[in-house]
C-alpha cells in the first residue's frame, strides 16, 4: 500500500512537471494548488443464502482533483478518474436530477463534515450532510414488492432495512399521501442543523437553495458524471461555499469535502436471514426483489438513455445506500477566507475604491490580507464601469478608482494613475466540438469578433429569410467558413444558432469595450470588412454597423459602449405568432439575440454554465394569458451541444476555469485569400508569457500620465506577434492632494503592496491570482513598478505631485539619456537670494538683462505643493497683550488712587 502511494505520488509529480513544461512560458495556471490523487479498491459482492460472498465485480478507482486549497465561491475544480465502471443510459446534463437514473454513474457530491470515525457525531460526514439539487435524489420508493434494492443491501444496518425509514411523522399534509410499501427518505441536515425531510414533488420542506426548475438558474453541483468505456472520465465540479449555499454552509469554520461515489451497484443480501421476518422478503416477491437487486444494467455502456427502464440497483439514485457509500473517495476541501471575512473584522474604517471589474479577482484575494492585518487600512472594491469611476474621481465624488485608460486629456487635478498588474479581457467560451466534447483550442480573428459584435450573422432562419442585407451571410459562426478553417473539428451548425451568432457583451460603458474595439479596428482585415468590403466568402457587415465614412451615420470605433444599432423586425415571423411575445409587441430582434448585460460577472456566470442570454423564449405567466407573457433568456444549453461566447475579464476566466480563445495578432498570408488553415496567421492565447510580451509593448504617455497599449503595433511590429492583444494595464488612480489621511494611507499601502508582497502569484490570501501579471521587471514591467512605488510616496505625501511615466527615473538607464530638468516651475525662490529691497522698488525694466523669469508656463508635472504656513507672534499676540496691559494698568491705577492713600498715612506719621 505504501509503495503504491509512493509510486502514485511520483507519477503525479512527474505529470505536474511535464504539464508545467508544456504550458507556454509559465502559463497562468493553478497547478500545484493542492491537487490530490487518491486510489481505492471498490467491490460489489452479493451475499448468498449460504452466507458466502460472491464477488460480482471489483475495481481500483483512482481519483484526481486539480485543486483542494484556497477554494472560492463557485469555483470549478477539475475532477478526473480512471478504473470506474463505464456508465450506461447516459443523459445530456450530468447536473440534472434526471442524471441520477443513469447506470453506473460517477457521483460527485459536496458534503459537510469530516470523514473520520473518530470525529464527533455532529461533525461526521454522512449522506445527510451531502447536497443534492432536488429532494428526488434523496428519496427511494418501491411500489412493487416493497423490497427495493436498498432494503436488501447487505451492508445496511437492520434499522435502515425496515419498510419505512426516514418518513417524517406526522406525515406532512402537503406531501403525497399515497404510501409505498417500501420507502426510504434520506434527510438533508443543513449547517444550521435544520433537518429537511425531503420528499418528491410537492413537499415544501426543502432547503431554500434547492434547484428551481428553471434553466436560467445555476445548476446544482451534484454531478452524476459519465465514465467512458475505458473506465476514465473527467468533469468540472463547482465548489460551493456558504456564499453560494448557506444550507450546506462550507467555508470559514465549517469543514467540507468532495465525495466521489463510484456507483458499483448494491451488494445484495436477498435472503436477509439475519433480519426479523417482517423485513425478509418471501415467496414470489422474494424472487422478484432479488432479481431487481442483483441486476447489472439495462443499458450497454455508453448507450444513451431512451426510456424509464434503468436498473435501480446500479443507478445513481442509490448513491446514499451503504453499498455505494462505503466505496466513496473523500477529498477534504480547504476554502479561502470567505468574502465576508472583512465585514466581520470591522469594515468601519475601510476605504472604498471604485471601478474596474477587471480587478475583482485581484481585490478578492488582496482584501483579506489588508483587513486581517492590523497595521494596514482595509479597503473595499465597489465595482463600477471604468469611465464612470473616472468621472466620479475627477469631480471628486470618489477618492480612488481602478481604471485602465486615463481620461482623454489627463487628469485635471493632481492625480497619479499607478499600475497594479497587467491583466486584460478574454474571449471566453463554452463550445462543444463535432463529437460533443468540449472544444478547448478556439482561435478567433478580429474579423470574426467584428462579425459577432455587429450582429452580422442572422442567427435564426426568420431573420435570414426576411433581412435582405444579411440573407447571404452564414446563419451563425459555426457555419462561417473562416471560423471553420481556423478551428478544425468544430461542429457544423448547432441547435442554438442564435447563441452561436453573437457574443455576450457589456451593455455599460467600459474600458474593456474600448480595448476590444481598439483591437478590432487596428486589424486591417477587420477594418476593411467593417468598412463594407465582403470577406473572401462574400459575408458582409450588417449595414447598421458599417464604419464606412461615406455612409451617413456610420459607426466610429473605438467606443466605450458597444451600441445596439440594428432595428430590423422580421414582420412575417412576428405576424405568424410563433413567438406570441413578439407578435404582441414587435421589437428589433437582433438586439434581443445580442442581449448585452451590465456586468462582466454576469458574462462569466453565463459562460461557466453555458447559458445563452438570447431573449427569444416567450414565457407566459400562468393565469395572465398573453398580457403576462414576456421574453426571457434561452438559458442553459445542453452539454455536448454548447456554443456560447462572451467577453470576460482574464481574472474571471481563470477563477472560473473558463476556456479562452487565442486571438490573432499578425497575418503573413495573402489578405484576400480564402484561408483554409491557420498557416500564416499568429494566434496568441492569454498567459503570463503573452501578457509579458504585451507589457513590453506599452508606451509611456506623459500627456495622460500613464502607459498605453499600442494596438496599431500589434499587427505590424515584430514584437507584437507574441503579445496578447487583449492585455490591459490595471491601474489605481488616486489624487495626490486633498485626500483625507485615512484614504491617503490606505491607497499608498495598496500601491506599495502591488510592488512588494502582492508580487507573489498564487491562490492564497494576499497573493496575485492567475490572470494577473504582477509588476516584475523580468516581465517588462520594471518601469511600471518604479512608477507605482513613486506614486505610493506621492499619495502618502498628498502634496499635489504628479508623475511622468517617461521620467528617466522610471525608465531603465539605456533607453533615454537624462534630460536636464527644466521642469522646475519658476518661482520667487530664484530671486530670494538676491532680493531687491523693498521701498527701493523694482528695478527699471531696461536695467535688467533678459535673463531671469522665463514665462511662468505651468508645467503639469510639477507639484504645486501645499500652502505654506507663516507664523507671526506679533500678529497673533500684539492686540491681546496690549489690551491686557492697558486694562491691567488702568485697573491698577484706579486701585492705587482709591486705596493707596490710607496706606500712605502711617508712613507720613512715621
Amino acid at each position, binding site marked *: 500500500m505504501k509503495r503504491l502511494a509512493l509510486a502514485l505520488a511520483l507519477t503525479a509529480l512527474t505529470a505536474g512537471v511535464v504539464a508545467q513544461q508544456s504550458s507556454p512560458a509559465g502559463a497562468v495556471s493553478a497547478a500545484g494548488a493542492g491537487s490530490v490523487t487518491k486510489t481505492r479498491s471498490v467491490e460489489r459482492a452479493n451475499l448468498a443464502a449460504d452466507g458466502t460472498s460472491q464477488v460480482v465485480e471489483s475495481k481500483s478507482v483512482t481519483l484526481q482533483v486539480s485543486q483542494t486549497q484556497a477554494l472560492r465561491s463557485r469555483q470549478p475544480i477539475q475532477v478526473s478518474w480512471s478504473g470506474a465502471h463505464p456508465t450506461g443510459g447516459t443523459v445530456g446534463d450530468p447536473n440534472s436530477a434526471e442524471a441520477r437514473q443513469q447506470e453506473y454513474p460517477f457521483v460527485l457530491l459536496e458534503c459537510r463534515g469530516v470523514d473520520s470515525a473518530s470525529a464527533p457525531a455532529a461533525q461526521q460526514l454522512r449522506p445527510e450532510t451531502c447536497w443534492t439539487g432536488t429532494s428526488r435524489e434523496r428519496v427511494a420508493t418501491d411500489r412493487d414488492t416493497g423490497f427495493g434494492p436498498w432494503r436488501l443491501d447487505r451492508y445496511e444496518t437492520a434499522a435502515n432495512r425496515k419498510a419505512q425509514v426516514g418518513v417524517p411523522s406526522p406525515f406532512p399534509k402537503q406531501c403525497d399521501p399515497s404510501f409505498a410499501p417500501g420507502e426510504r427518505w434520506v434527510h438533508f441536515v443543513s449547517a444550521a442543523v435544520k433537518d429537511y425531510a425531503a420528499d418528491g414533488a410537492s413537499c415544501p420542506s426543502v432547503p431554500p437553495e434547492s434547484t428551481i426548475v428553471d434553466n436560467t438558474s445555476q445548476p446544482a453541483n451534484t454531478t452524476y458524471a459519465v465514465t467512458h468505456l475505458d473506465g476514465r472520465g473527467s468533469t468540472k465540479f463547482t465548489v460551493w461555499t456558504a456564499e453560494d449555499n448557506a444550507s450546506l454552509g462550507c467555508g470559514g469554520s465549517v469543514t467540507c469535502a468532495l465525495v466521489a461515489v463510484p456507483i458499483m451497484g448494491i451488494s445484495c443480501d436477498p435472503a436477509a436471514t439475519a433480519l426479523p421476518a417482517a423485513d425478509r422478503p418471501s415467496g414470489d416477491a422474494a424472487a422478484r426483489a432479488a432479481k431487481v437487486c442483483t441486476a447489472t444494467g439495462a443499458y450497454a455502456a455508453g448507450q444513451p438513455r431512451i426510456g424509464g427502464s434503468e436498473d435501480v440497483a446500479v443507478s445513481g439514485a442509490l448513491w446514499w445506500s451503504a453499498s455505494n457509500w462505503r466505496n466513496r473517495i473523500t477529498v477534504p476541501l480547504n476554502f479561502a477566507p470567505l468574502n465576508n471575512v472583512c465585514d466581520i473584522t470591522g469594515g468601519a474604517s475601510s476605504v472604498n475604491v471604485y471601478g474596474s471589474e477587471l480587478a475583482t479577482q485581484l481585490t478578492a484575494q488582496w482584501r483579506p490580507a489588508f483587513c486581517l492585518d492590523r497595521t494596514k487600512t482595509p479597503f473595499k472594491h465597489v465595482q463600477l464601469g471604468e469611465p464612470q469611476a473616472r468621472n466620479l474621481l475627477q469631480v471628486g465624488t470618489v477618492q480612488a478608482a481602478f481604471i485602465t485608460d486615463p481620461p482623454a486629456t489627463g487628469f*485635471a*487635478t*493632481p492625480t497619479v494613475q499607478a499600475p497594479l498588474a497587467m491583466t486584460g479581457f478574454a474571449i471566453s467560451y463554452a463550445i462543444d466540438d463535432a463529437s460533443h466534447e468540449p472544444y478547448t483550442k478556439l482561435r478567433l480573428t478580429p474579423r470574426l469578433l467584428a462579425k459577432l459584435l455587429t450582429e452580422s450573422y442572422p442567427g435564426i432562419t426568420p431573420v435570414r429569410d426576411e433581412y435582405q442585407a444579411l440573407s447571404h451571410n452564414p446563419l451563425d459562426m459555426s457555419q462561417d467558413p473562416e471560423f471553420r478553417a481556423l478551428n478544425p473539428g468544430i461542429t457544423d451548425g448547432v441547435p442554438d444558432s442564435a447563441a452561436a451568432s453573437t457574443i455576450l457583451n457589456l451593455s455599460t460603458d467600459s474600458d474593456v469595450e474600448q480595448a476590444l474595439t481598439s483591437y478590432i479596428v487596428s486589424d486591417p482585415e477587420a477594418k476593411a470588412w467593417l468598412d463594407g468590403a465582403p470577406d473572401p466568402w462574400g459575408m458582409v457587415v450588417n449595414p447598421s454597423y458599417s464604419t464606412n465614412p461615406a455612409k451617413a451615420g456610420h459607426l466610429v470605433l473605438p467606443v466605450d459602449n458597444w451600441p445596439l444599432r440594428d432595428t430590423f423586425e422580421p414582420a412575417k415571423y412576428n405576424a405568424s405568432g410563433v413567438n406570441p411575445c413578439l407578435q404582441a409587441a414587435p421589437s428589433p430582434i437582433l438586439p434581443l439575440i445580442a442581449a448585452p448585460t451590465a456586468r462582466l460577472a454576469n458574462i462569466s456566470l453565463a459562460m461557466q454554465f453555458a447559458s445563452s442570454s438570447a431573449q427569444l423564449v416567450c414565457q407566459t405567466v400562468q393565469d395572465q394569458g398573453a398580457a403576462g407573457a414576456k421574453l426571457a433568456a434561452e438559458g442553459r444549453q445542453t452539454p455536448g451541444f454548447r456554443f456560447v461566447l462572451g467577453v470576460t475579464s482574464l481574472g474571471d476566466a481563470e477563477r472560473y476555469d473558463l476556456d479562452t480563445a487565442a486571438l490573432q495578432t499578425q497575418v503573413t498570408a495573402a489578405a484576400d485569400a480564402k484561408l483554409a488553415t491557420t498557416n500564416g496567421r499568429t494566434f496568441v492565447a492569454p498567459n503570463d508569457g503573452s501578457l509579458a510580451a504585451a507589457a513590453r509593448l506599452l508606451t509611456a504617455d506623459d500627456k495622460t500620465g500613464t502607459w498605453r497599449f499600442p494596438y496599431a503595433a500589434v499587427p505590424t511590429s515584430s514584437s507584437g506577434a507574441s503579445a496578447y492583444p487583449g492585455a490591459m494595464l490595471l491601474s489605481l488612480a488616486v489624487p495626490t*492632494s486633498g485626500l483625507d489621511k485615512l484614504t491617503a494611507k490606505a491607497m499608498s499601502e495598496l500601491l506599495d503592496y502591488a510592488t512588494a508582497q502582492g508580487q507573489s502569484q498564487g491562490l492564497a490570501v494576499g497573493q496575485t491570482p492567475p490572470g494577473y501579471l504582477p509588476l516584475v521587471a523580468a516581465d517588462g514591467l520594471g518601469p511600471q513598478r518604479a512608477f507605482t512605488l513613486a506614486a505610493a510616496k506621492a499619495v502618502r505625501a*498628498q*502634496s*499635489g505631485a504628479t508623475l511622468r511615466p517617461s521620467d528617466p527615473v522610471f525608465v531603465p538607464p539605456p533607453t533615454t539619456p537624462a534630460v536636464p530638468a527644466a521642469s522646475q*516651475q519658476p518661482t*520667487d525662490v530664484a*530671486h*530670494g537670494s*538676491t*532680493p*531687491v529691497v*523693498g*521701498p527701493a*522698488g*523694482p*528695478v527699471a*525694466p*531696461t536695467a*535688467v538683462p533678459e535673463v*531671469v*523669469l522665463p*514665462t*511662468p*508656463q*505651468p508645467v*503639469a508635472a510639477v507639484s*504645486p*505643493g*501645499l*500652502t*505654506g*504656513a*507663516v*507664523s*507671526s507672534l*506679533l*500678529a*497673533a*499676540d*500684539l*492686540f*491681546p497683550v*496690549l*489690551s491686557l*496691559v*492697558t*486694562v491691567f*494698568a*488702568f485697573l*491698577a*491705577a484706579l486701585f*492705587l*488712587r482709591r486705596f*493707596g*492713600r490710607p*496706606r*500712605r498715612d502711617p508712613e507720613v506719621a512715621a
Partner: protein
Amino acid sequence: MRPGPAFVAWVLGCVAALGLWALLYPVLIGALQEQDAQQQLFARFRSQLAQATAPLGPTGPGKPVALVSVPAAGVRNAVVVEGTSGVELEKGPGHLRSTVLPGQVGTAEVLGRAITFGAPFAHLGELRPGDPITVTTGQGSFTFRVEQLRGPGDPLPVPPTATQSRLVLATASGAGWRTHAAPTTQLYVDALLDGTAVPAPTTGARGAAPASEQVMGVSTEPLTELVIWLLGLLVAAVGAVWLTTRWGRRRTWLVAVPVLLAVGIGASTAAGQLLPNVL
C-alpha cells in the same frame, strides 16, 4: 526714596493711556488714514484709466494698479497699490510685485489687511466658491469666480493653463475671535478668471518681492523713522514739561497738545508700519 503710590498710579495711567492709543490708533485713526489714501488713489487711478495710462506691468511702490470689488466680502472699488510691504498696505490692498497683474495669464496675488488700517480684507473668510470678484486694470475689467478658500497645509491649486488667470487674495486670519483680533494664520482665496486671460507685457522683468512683502511680512525700514519720531516726541514732551514751569499748565496745554498729538501720530504711523503687513 521710594516712588509714592500717586506717582506709580500716574505712571500706570500713562501706560494705560498709551496702550489704549496703541489699540485704537491702528483701528480707528488708521482706518481714517486708509480712507483718505484710498480717495486720493482712486482719483488718481480714475484719471489714469481714463487716459489709458494705468500701469500694465511693474510700477513704483504705492502706485495704484487696479480696482478690486468683492461684494460678498464688503470690498467696494478698493484701489490696489503696487507693493505689499506694511507701508503700502496702510493705503489699501497691495499687489504682490512678483506676480502678474490680475487678469493676465498666470497667477496674480493681492494682499490686504485684516484688522488695521481700514481692514479691507477683514471679511474674506465669508466668501464662498462661486462668489464674484471684479478687478479693473488698465487692460479692462475682469470677473473672477472664487474656487476655494485655503489655509496652511491645504493643497495649492493647479497652476493655471496658458489661457487662464488666477487671482489669489491673501490676508491674515485665525480661528473664531482671533480673525478680527489676533490672527494666527493666513487665509488665501483662489479665484479663477471667467473668460480668457489677457497676455502679460513681455518686456521687462517682473518685480521681486522680498520676505517683508510676502504675507505676514514685517519690514524694518520704518524703524529709523520711528526712532526719529520718538526722539521728536521726547523733545516735545521735555519741552512741554519745561514750558509748564514757565507758562503754567493751561497755556502749555494749549500749545503742547497739538504738537504732541502730531508727533505722536507720526510716531504711531511709523510704528504701525512695523506691524505684519496683512494684520
